[in-house]
């Protein structure tokens, strides 16, 4: 079936709302407007304003309301327009959603799903372009997912809703128009598993979310140069699937991590450290990182492009790692 990332997400929401009447979607403009990115278009007509619930601009309150209603047995899906605005709700996510279970000695679970957009690439300037997935991946008590393919867009929500604990799902803004064939009844992928998106034997390119298409493009460039790159999509940023990453590094002996977050204190830093801790003796070269430049993401197209990982910069880093030591 031909579909887009946006439609796949909508289909996942439709399925969830149909399957379980405890599920409801809540957030700014999710109803009448159809979602800031069109993901929930038409769902309010189908399920009504109680279950596709428009909220005022109140990130902290509606996220906290999601937490409270989850505590009381509902299965809310909270949409926060972008990760930038989620900072107004960070207190609720970190201090309540992620910690209530532990603080209560295991008495309360928070079966909440929070969806939000992330990432740059659309010339929206700093306050609409940041990638803070790594911050969320830092937090024990939540799970963090980053669907990068149509199949993950279609099926990760189901897995997240089945999880009894809070799950944060990052949808990269540049992926909504991604289109392609989606197999109608694929299985729900497990949370916490990475996937090898392209096999190869010279270098492992580890990435996730909006950087996956760029990394696959870089692998094409490398292939034309006779370098065979394996592309690992982390898919789950917390927990991280160490086994898949290390198995790949054991095959290729080289690793480049591609992460749209800033380099300092990034998820890429975490993955790099894990490779060094767990697969040091498999390595033929030091681990490299391709991250965003350490600036607020600029507006001007050329500046924005220069700030972000691009197929050319990814291919160049991989080429160096292979060339220098190959």
């Amino acid at each position, binding site marked *: 079936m031909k579909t887009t990332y946006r439609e796949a997400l909508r289909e996942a929401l439709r399925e969830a709302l149909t399957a379980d009447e405890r599920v409801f979607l809540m957030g700014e403009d999710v109803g009448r407007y159809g979602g800031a990115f069109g993901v929930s278009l038409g769902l309010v007509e189908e399920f009504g304003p109680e279950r596709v619930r428009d909220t005022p601009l109140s990130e902290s309150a509606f996220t906290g309301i999601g937490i409270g209603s989850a505590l009381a047995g509902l299965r809310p899906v909270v949409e926060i327009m972008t990760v930038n605005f989620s900072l107004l709700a960070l207190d609720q996510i970190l201090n*309540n959603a992620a910690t209530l279970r532990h603080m209560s000695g295991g008495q309360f679970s928070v079966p909440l799903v929070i969806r939000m957009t992330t990432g740059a690439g659309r010339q929206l300037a700093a306050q609409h372009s940041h990638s803070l997935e790594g911050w969320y991946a830092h937090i024990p008590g939540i799970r963090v997912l980053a669907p990068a393919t149509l199949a993950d867009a279609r099926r990760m929500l189901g897995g997240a809703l089945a999880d009894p604990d809070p799950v944060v799902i990052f949808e990269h803004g540049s992926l909504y128009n991604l289109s392609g064939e989606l197999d109608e009844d694929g299985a729900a992928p497990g949370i916490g598993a990475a996937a090898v998106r392209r096999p190869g034997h010279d270098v492992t390119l580890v990435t996730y979310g909006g950087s996956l298409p760029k990394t696959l493009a870089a692998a094409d460039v490398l292939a034309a140069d006779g370098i065979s790159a394996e592309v690992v999509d982390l898919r789950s940023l917390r927990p991280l699937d160490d086994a898949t990453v290390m198995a790949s590094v054991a095959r290729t002996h080289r690793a480049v991590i591609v992460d749209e977050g800033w380099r300092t204190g990034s998820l890429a830093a975490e993955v790099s450290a894990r490779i060094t801790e767990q697969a040091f003796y498999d390595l033929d070269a030091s681990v490299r990182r391709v991250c965003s430049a350490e600036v607020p993401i600029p507006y001007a197209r050329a500046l924005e492009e220069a700030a972000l990982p691009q197929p050319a910069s990814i291919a160049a880093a991989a080429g160096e790692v292979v060339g220098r030591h190959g």
Partner: protein
Amino acid sequence: MTTTRRTKAQRGRPSQSAAAKHRRDLLAGMLLIRRFEERCVELYSASTIRGFVHLCIGEEAVATGVTTALEPADAVVSTYREHGHALARGVPVEAVMAEMYGKATGCSGGRGGSMHLFDAGRRFYGGNAIVAGGIPLAAGLALAEKMRGTGGLVCCFFGDGAFAEGEFHESANLAALWSLPLLLACENNLYAMGTPLAVEHAQTDLAMRAASYGMPAWAVDGMDVTAVEAAARRAVDGIRAGHGPHFLELRTYRFRAHSMYDPDRYRDKTEIERWRTRDPISVLAERMKADGELNDTVQDELDQRARREVDRAQQAAEAAPAESAATLLRHVHTDSEEAPA
């Protein structure tokens, strides 16, 4: 008239009517909180219990009066100053004391301590140490009550300091907009830590401001437990009748410092003494005596009973096993066998 009643009471046969028994229960409830917290002071001074400990001594009428108006099926959300709310809600004093000790038998398995008391069975949802952090959560619980049609309501306790946070205003707007079954119980003790009401609020009439969200709101004497209970019942009736959130400004005072760490330099001692003359326990006890429902002997018995309960809880907490460090990583995520329904 009053004199004859008093004489009768002094002979040891105070009135036994249902109303008298109810007031005696209120008194006993407040005494338990008072004696529990006094014990906390001793235990803290002896370094037996640690952490931030916030006492509600002086504010017992609020916890007792409001929770008395609730049903067991209702939910309660509280703050870091929640010993009184937890005990008034019926969380066993042993479980609360054991939590203060960080023991395995504590009501949060030793993970929470004084500021994070939880009890799922009594629908007591903590124990939130982020000022105003519990308010959106309470609104969410109320949304769930409404969507599921359970007829339950949610009571959220918070302070005058929390009223200044955006989370209160966002939640008040949403709760009124969606007509949620939410009782917003604002404990106005005149201070946010060391900041007086007039230094934190441009307009200090909190009930009036809450009313601007389109919800019934009024102020009550928070030192008078029967007045608190009556106001809470009126609010609860309005909420159950489907009139959406209600706001109570409970005008009260904490006799002790903000926390055990606080030297309390910002308050005039005469102010504290003036409020002490309105101690909620004496206010009720005196009224009961005047009405022939209590005498010194009975009051003393009630007091001894509270002390014995606290003694037992302390002994049990001391004897209880510590939570083992081997369990450190428990309760971060839900084990599959304990997943919620």
